[in-house]
């Protein structure tokens, strides 16, 4: 990773621009993604494969709404608004709906971040200009300060500060995944015209209600994780019953301002995932610990997931 950023620094005429300038653009972006109507087509590249998707984001008197729709293969759609998230997945002939996690005042399809917080874990550099989807863009580099997170490169539209391209690199400067717009329309005339996928009646309709609450300091779950990598903090804790197994499962969400990972702890008589698993930019790691299946998932290196679950203890005086 250091070699990529050194090279980029040497090549970019604006490489030494201050972090404040980059932070200014990021703050513009946060505002833009939540308040702008846009309709775009983007390509998601990973593992040498490419998928094409469409996103429509609108804000009106009814609130904020967003749809992400696959343009490859079987149509699949995710719809989000201020109250719920609906998955329309015809492969499984199911529609599932979840309540929006509590505290989600602004779900913003793309990016929600705290620019100031990012500086703890990343060096943020405004690094010149670029062109994406025939639009001029500012380039912002997120250089990780350790090996427990990936590096990123972001292209922001010059006019609207909307993200046009988002690349993720591993510690060896290998491009893990990329999201790049090929077309982006912006403006008030963008309307939410309803589901993007063809109307069809699923054979099975499933409604899943997720009960969740924002993290309350005195209630952080039954487990204590003693080796969470620096820079990641507990951002959410949810406890629920698995619909199929009826096992109680605890879900911990950790984030560093850009990246995040989840740890699931489920009391179960037998092991499930043991070791590493990968799919595209995502990693997972599982182990069986004292009658509990522990699985961590996230857009972070495998070593981060392994470290996070390597030393976990039951909190004292918590009923099991």
């Amino acid at each position, binding site marked *: 990773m250091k070699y990529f950023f050194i090279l980029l620094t040497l090549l970019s005429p604006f490489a030494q621009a201050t972090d404040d300038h980059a932070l200014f653009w990021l703050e513009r972006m946060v505002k833009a993604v939540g308040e702008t109507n846009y309709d775009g087509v983007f390509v*998601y590249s990973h*593992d*040498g*494969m490419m*998928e094409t998707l469409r*996103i429509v984001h609108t804000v009106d008197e009814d609130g904020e709404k967003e749809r*992400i729709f*696959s343009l*490859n*293969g*079987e149509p*699949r*759609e*995710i719809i989000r608004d201020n109250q719920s998230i609906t998955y329309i*997945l015809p*492969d499984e002939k199911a529609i599932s709906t*979840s309540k929006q*996690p509590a*505290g*989600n005042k602004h*779900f*913003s*399809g*793309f*990016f*929600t*971040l*705290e620019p100031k917080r990012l500086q703890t874990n990343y060096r943020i550099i405004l690094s010149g200009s670029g062109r994406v989807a025939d639009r001029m863009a500012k380039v912002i580099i997120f250089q990780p300060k350790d090996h427990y997170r990936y590096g*990123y490169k972001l292209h922001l539209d010059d006019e609207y500060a909307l993200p046009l391209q*988002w690349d993720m690199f591993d510690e060896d400067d290998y491009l893990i995944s990329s*999201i790049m717009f090929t077309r982006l329309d912006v403006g008030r005339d963008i309307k939410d015209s309803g589901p993007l996928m063809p109307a069809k009646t699923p054979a099975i309709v499933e409604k899943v209600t*997720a009960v*969740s609450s924002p993290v309350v300091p005195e209630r952080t779950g039954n487990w204590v994780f003693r080796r969470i990598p620096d820079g990641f903090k507990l*951002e*959410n804790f949810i406890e629920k019953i698995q619909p199929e197994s009826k096992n109680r499962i605890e879900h911990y*969400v950790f*984030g*560093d*301002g850009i*990246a*995040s*990972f*989840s740890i*699931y702890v489920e009391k179960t008589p037998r092991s*499930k*995932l*043991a*070791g*590493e*698993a*990968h*799919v*595209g930019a*995502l990693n*997972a790691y*599982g182990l069986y610990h004292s009658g509990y299946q522990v*699985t961590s*998932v*996230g*857009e972070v290196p495998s070593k981060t997931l392994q470290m996070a679950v390597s030393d976990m203890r039951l909190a004292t005086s918590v009923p099991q």
Partner: protein
Amino acid sequence: MMTDKTDKLSALLDDELETGGLQAFVKQLTEDDEQRNKLARYALISETIKNKPSVTDVSLIADRVRAELENEPVVFAPRAQKKARSAGHWLKPAAGAAIAATVAMFAVSNLSRFNAGSGFSDEFPVTVDIARPVHYNQSLMRPASTQWTSANARSQEIEKDLNHLLRQHSEFSSQSGMQGMLPYTTIVVYDRKH
């Protein structure tokens, strides 16, 4: 008794080598690049004669070879070999796995030669550039990269469980961080079956 290496290659592909001869021959193959390349070539010829695969679809070649080995355990790591019931038992699937990988690598690198009608060449590269070498060699038993890659996540139940966890992760990870869209994009992309 077979003394000709070519005959031994053919016998290996036809599953006619006896256990004792198999062990010794596979050991030879690991040390002989030329013989290994010939094995790959003969495997492709055999495949072509038997099934007439479309040589324009490289993935089918290796998939078909791999499918033949589906019923045999694949040795992913050397230490796993110690757990085999007998030396002959693991050597055979190990050779089979090597065949599948080598055939695929050969096919990808030499496809244009076949299509151009240039015939076979004795000059096969020892190192072959393929589009996704890491994933191809590490996931010999998996057909598509949109599925979870893991020696332990190959069961449908575990994959289903992981996808379910991924969805839940996406719902909450989007609240903070730049990955707001990525988890949902991942769901839309990875949940689809091929």
